[in-house]
């Protein structure tokens, strides 16, 4: 029996291929409706996948097609009430948004989904992003990823700023909360010491502080699952310190296995246990009844893309509006073939990585074919679970619920406490 994999799906817009917009049956305006994303998320949920991801950025994604996309956190929040088992992992950027807002946004997705929230941490590294906010010029990747780490650190301190059970509702003493179980976080991040007038109205913006506590009680998972894409050294450093799930790209299972070993080394180097980190590789998929037809379709899609035609896989490619290219150089694997062959391909990855983020080339088509024809084979082969093992994303990924840093004894509760007191 093969080793079961953690499988997720990217449900971005028209699909993951840069020419997806030329092929999807979805009309452009539908990419801003909840129904479009709900369709893909339900497919993934019924297939007992672990999670769906939705990318985001302030400026337009640097690729052809509709020059925009909806806010990822809010779009996945709209899916929370219409799904019940699938993990919801939006990209939320850390460069321009206040850590306080980031923290409570992710915590609230976790509350609304009863423990199914993840957070794909990203930075804003283009001039276009910076100008839309106008608070600071674009910064080098090293600085941005250091800061991203500090934001994750502050966000998780805010998640812990309410201990589990801080809400006591003690009628006898009239106290709603036990304030001894609420904590200040007092985080400070100094980006640079000097303030230059030429930086415009926000020259004073040299970093940030957060006093705490959060206004939002600790989320059901304790800490929603932190995903970091680790395609560069800067990203890997932050991933090693803070990520529960590390996304990688590799052309082959062999290279993926090497990369996983590198990630594990970095995680150990940061003083953490690699057993509590999942390494997940991207896999683009183009599916058809017949291998030849799938390959032709894949080639046709590639031919529609100006330039080198390499499928874009998540991070942002060359900007159509002059955005500076920010896509990491590691290419990802793409599979074009039949749903049956895909099952064999996925099996070939099962020793190399902990799981895969499938990137359907065109939505919803390639996800529908995967769900209908590949999933039963994967279940038969024991590569995909036939039922979920837990009701939280953390639980399904086999990750422990973290103890609160303020809890008197470092207890680890196996499951989330109920945050729901109200009738549905």
């Amino acid at each position: 029996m093969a080793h079961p994999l953690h499988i997720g799906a990217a449900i971005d817009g028209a699909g993951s291929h840069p020419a997806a917009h030329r092929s999807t049956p979805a009309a452009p305006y539908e990419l801003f409706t909840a129904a479009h994303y709900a369709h893909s998320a339900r497919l993934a949920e019924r297939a007992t996948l672990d999670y769906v991801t939705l990318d985001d950025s302030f400026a337009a994604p640097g690729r052809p097609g509709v020059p925009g996309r909806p806010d990822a956190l809010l779009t996945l929040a709209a899916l929370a009430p219409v799904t019940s088992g699938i993990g919801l992992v939006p990209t939320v950027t850390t460069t321009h948004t206040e850590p306080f807002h980031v923290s409570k946004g992710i915590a609230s997705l976790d509350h609304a989904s009863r423990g199914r929230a993840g957070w794909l941490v990203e930075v804003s590294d283009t001039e276009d992003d910076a100008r839309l906010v106008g608070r600071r010029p674009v910064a080098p990747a090293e600085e941005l990823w250091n800061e991203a780490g500090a934001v994750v650190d502050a966000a998780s301190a805010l998640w812990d700023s309410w201990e589990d059970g801080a809400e006591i509702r003690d009628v006898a003493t009239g106290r709603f909360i036990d304030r001894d179980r609420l904590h200040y976080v007092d985080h400070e991040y100094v980006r640079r010491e000097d303030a230059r007038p030429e930086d415009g109205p926000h020259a004073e913006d040299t970093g940030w502080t957060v006093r705490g506590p959060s206004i939002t009680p600790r989320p059901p998972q304790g800490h929603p699952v932190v995903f970091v894409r680790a395609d560069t050294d800067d990203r890997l450093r932050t991933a090693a310190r803070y990520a529960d799930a590390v996304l990688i790209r590799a052309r082959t299972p062999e290279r993926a296995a090497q990369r996983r070993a590198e990630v594990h080394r970095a995680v150990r180097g940061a003083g953490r246990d690699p057993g509590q980190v999942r390494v997940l590789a991207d896999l683009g998929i183009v599916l058809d009844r017949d291998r030849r037809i799938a390959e032709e379709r894949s080639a046709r899609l590639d031919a529609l893309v100006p330039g080198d035609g390499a499928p874009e896989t998540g991070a942002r490619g060359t900007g159509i509006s002059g955005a500076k290219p920010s896509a990491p150089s590691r290419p990802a694997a793409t599979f074009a073939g039949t749903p049956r062959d895909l099952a064999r391909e996925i099996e070939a990855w099962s020793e190399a990585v902990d799981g895969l983020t499938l990137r359907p080339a065109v939505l919803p088509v390639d996800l529908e074919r995967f769900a209908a024809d590949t999933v039963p084979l994967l279940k038969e082969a024991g590569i995909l679970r036939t039922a979920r093992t837990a009701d939280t994303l953390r639980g399904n990924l086999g990750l422990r619920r973290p103890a609160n840093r303020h809890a008197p004894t470092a207890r680890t509760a196996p499951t989330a406490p109920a945050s729901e007191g109200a009738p549905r």
Partner: protein
Amino acid sequence: MSASDRRTGRRIRLAAHFPGVNNTTVWADPRSHSQIGFGSFAHLARTAERGGFDYLFLAEGLRLREHRGRIHDLDVMGRPDTLTVLAALSAVTEHLGLAGTLSATYNEPYEISRQIATLDHLSGGRAAWNVVTSSDAFTGENFRRGGYLDHADRYERAESFLRAARAFWDSWDTDALSPHTGTRGTARPGAVHPVSHRDRFFDIAGNATVPRPPQGHPVIIQAGDSPRGRDLAAAQADVVFSRHGGLEEGREFYADVKARLPAHGRDEDDLLIMPAATLVLGDTEEEAAERARHIRYQQVSGATAIQFVEQVWGRDLSDHDPEGPFPTVEPDLDTVVTQGKAAARFHDRAAKAREWRDLAEAEGLSLRELVVRVSARQTFVGTPRTVADTLVEHVETRACDGFVLVPHLTPGGLDEFVDRVVPLLRERGALRTEYEGATLRENLGLRPRPAPDRGATREPSGAGEPTPVPGP
């Protein structure tokens, strides 16, 4: 139904306020459930939609309140993120407006405009934004901007913030993604216009990444009370959320705010005034009054009463018996003991202290009784019929255009109102039986926000409503 009931045919607008983090919300009642779990929000939203309400309203405060240097622990505390909750609610409601309070001080225009535009798309045109300004350094400690704005500046920033947000909402032509433009899978070339907004607060340039919202502009709510706040409302808002729910003070406020409209080229119907109100029902007037009294004493526990007076007294009164006489020690007016929103409530503490002392003495009130008396909010107490009559009277006589109802129980606090008062309001034609419009803006009876005229290159789209992005 008598003919006089339809005198002016003024319709009542209703909003459901999710119970707030203050002592209006009674958490000690056995029927009180989670303030955080999504089920509570879904319950209240479904109740409001069943009752034909215009929108559900979420308040927001970005720092936990403190009292005498410690986190306040007597009231409900904690809430989820406003936008996240509203986005989730869009999935369990069909017609109800989704209004959120978001600070123009501790956010950035591009991000907020994009989030609200996303919410408007996800909900098919039901988003509303209560634009609040916050300047206190206390809240600012959670953010990089600290407390650097003073009172006048924060309204200037809010006004600039709103102009920037509107520029982003207007920056995609309404037909940018129309299936009839002949483009394959992308926007019509030339349909996305760059935005540039530069002044002493902002330096913003670039393209929006979300199409024009279905409402054109989501509904704008304003809750400031100062002359500057009222002017901002008259210039920019669609709805004022006010504290002036009484008949007399309501009429005064209503006349004052509506008189500011012509200066901005707007008329009476362009701005709705909706004060906060609580209500208590009973089968008889006596029963309702008894229930109201019971609720007031639940809201004002002995400990809460003492802390309430401490806010004005500026000193520790914990050695006082709440059921005993009103304090005779002098207030310490130089000390502020409460941090957070409630601190702003008392502008002239010396006058308040005198007033309370005189009242307690004249009527022989205990400390707690005094607080029950002076902290009463606008409350309608009566049978379903008298409450319905009173609500209608307020609207008919232009004390307001409707109400933001604040229940004291989470999440069932409006169930009884919807079961017993709503049918009476419907019977007399004061409240819709079905949602008439497709968007919140339409349901509120507000004028559409036409797309900006960008000159002669586009064919005239006719006056009025911009073509919404077609639904699936």
